[in-house]
């Protein structure tokens, strides 16, 4: 009888198409919006992911990775003095202004890496060598800088020069790194030169990056460093999630995306629920005939459930497929951000199961109340 149920569904083309379209749209909307939300959240953690150090030491009042409260450079030595620290290096991060040859300005995220070790260096060099950062006035720019400068009519290549706070910067490399939340290009240089580029201030250390000796976990090291007065040490993973939760709690981003996702669910329930109800309602007389002919309730229930979950499965496949195609097509430009971890399609699948279950339940209630004798009326 299950094959009969599928034939009844697939051959009622108008309702079948309506059901599949409704559920596909619902899946697409949820999957796409949640993936863009995840993409934005990933942008907020780009500094953490680009640098990649196991333990980050910040001022005790810092709440998330993009919030910089400058520290004294002596903090590097204090961190190095903690038992279990294998290494500790300074990191500078600040928003500076780059002036191009034509006089136009571009805000950039200046990242100053430890001069000796270049800890936190970009791993994906598109052109040039990261070691050349040690050359005079050397900087490495990311692909966003290349793109933004190109729009302003300047083709960035190795050897191109521009100014950061009136000091010359010469491009010795182009890298590919995760895009920053505000879309500013990453400009890498050494820590010492970054301080030269930056506007002078009493405290100029943004972060201390640290790593544990063998046998000490990142969490344990972070706990030990955090005992130092005025400092807070966070593991990379912890800082990643702390930053994401900070944006979820303190910005309107989740509400705006959540609203669209909720709309997707409502549209799904409205279209799928109503259409499936109509589908069952239109077939009620035939289901009653089947009941009269000896179909038992569990057989009819299996038929209705199979019909509901078949359209759900197909609609889900189309919706998630379209969302993936959308994501794939925008990933090259990284606009809008798109990140679809497995939890997103899993969540959408659960919501679709609930929508289909709800739709089937409405139909099943009608079928359960159906008197087979109605076929004689």
């Amino acid at each position, binding site marked *: 009888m299950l094959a009969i149920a599928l034939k009844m569904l697939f051959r009622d083309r108008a309702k079948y198409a309506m059901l599949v379209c409704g559920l596909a749209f619902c899946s697409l909307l949820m999957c796409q919006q949640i993936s863009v939300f995840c993409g934005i959240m990933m942008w907020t953690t780009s500094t953490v992911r680009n640098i990649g150090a196991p333990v980050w030491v910040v001022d005790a009042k810092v709440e998330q990775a993009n919030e910089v409260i400058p520290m004294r450079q002596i903090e590097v030595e204090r961190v190095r003095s903690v038992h279990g620290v294998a290494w500790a290096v300074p990191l500078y991060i600040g928003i500076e202004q780059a002036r191009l040859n034509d006089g136009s300005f571009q805000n950039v995220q200046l990242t100053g890496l430890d001069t000796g070790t270049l800890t936190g260096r970009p791993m994906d060099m598109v052109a040039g060598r990261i070691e050349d950062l040690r050359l005079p006035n050397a900087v490495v720019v990311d692909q966003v800088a290349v793109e933004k400068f190109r729009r302003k009519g300047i083709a960035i290549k190795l050897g191109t020069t521009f100014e950061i706070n009136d000091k010359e910067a010469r491009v010795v490399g182009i890298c590919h790194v995760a895009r920053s939340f505000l879309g500013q290009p990453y400009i890498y240089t050494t820590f010492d030169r970054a301080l030269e580029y930056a506007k002078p201030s009493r405290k100029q250390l943004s972060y201390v990056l640290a790593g544990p000796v063998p046998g000490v976990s990142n969490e344990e090291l972070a706990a030990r460093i955090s005992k130092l007065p005025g400092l807070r040490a966070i593991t990379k993973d912890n800082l990643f999630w702390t930053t994401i939760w900070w944006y979820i709690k303190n910005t309107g981003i989740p509400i705006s995306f959540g609203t669209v996702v909720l709309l997707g669910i409502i549209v799904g329930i409205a279209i799928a629920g109503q259409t499936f109800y109509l589908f069952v309602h239109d077939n009620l007389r035939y289901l*009653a005939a089947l009941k009269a002919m000896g179909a038992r309730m569990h057989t009819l229930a299996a038929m209705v459930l199979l019909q509901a979950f078949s359209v759900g499965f197909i609609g889900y496949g189309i919706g998630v497929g379209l969302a993936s195609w959308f994501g794939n097509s925008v990933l090259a430009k990284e606009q809008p951000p798109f990140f679809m971890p497995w939890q997103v399609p899993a969540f959408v699948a659960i919501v679709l199961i609930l929508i289909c279950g709800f739709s089937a339940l409405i139909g099943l209630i009608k079928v359960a109340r159906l008197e087979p*004798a109605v*076929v004689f009326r």
Partner: protein
Amino acid sequence: MSNLAINVADVVKSFPSGDTRTFALKGATLNARFGELMMIVGPSGCGKTTLLSVICGTLQCEEGMLSIFDHDLRKMKDWEITKFRCVNVGFIFQQFNLIPTLTAVENASIPLILNGVPTNKAERRAGEVLAEVGLGDKLHSYPSQLSGGQLQRVAISRALVHEPRLIICDEPTASLDAAAGQKTLDLLKSSALQPDRCVIVVTHDNRIYHFADRIAEMEDGRVIGIYDDPKDYHHA
């Protein structure tokens, strides 16, 4: 095995109607034998269809005796009645009730599938039965592509395909013109009626009374007369 296929005595059935109950059957008594086509006739609202529903187990009566093929339906559980119907009863409805999205052969195979026959075997057998009723060239036609008479022949095939012992027909000619109605009853009598089978037809189409072996006349929820010769009912 007794020659009585159906033995119904003093059956009472009522339906709620506001604060009161409306009695559709008020002690109906009827029996039908194997190998006969019994017609139940009477004016609208006299309880014909209710009696038919009680006989085939789609409605449960409140009082009386109800024995179908020596099975007391009143002592059977719901699922047992459903299974009994699945195996022993073939239905022909006034509105045909053919599923519009299934072809003739798929519609006709449903009772066999409900009885656990694999789909391919069921459709092969349904095709044979459809060919026997003259629809061999319409096996893959949808109900919307068939005439009223052809639809009724598909319905008859569906009722016969699993070789039930009881065929229930509710106003089988109501949706047909006179010629198609006569052909349907011809077909029903020639292919459905067998020595080990009983056919019950509810109708008020007096043009087909002569096909009956016996006629039971109902009025106001009771069987008020049984005529061994249909002509007697005409003259009564």
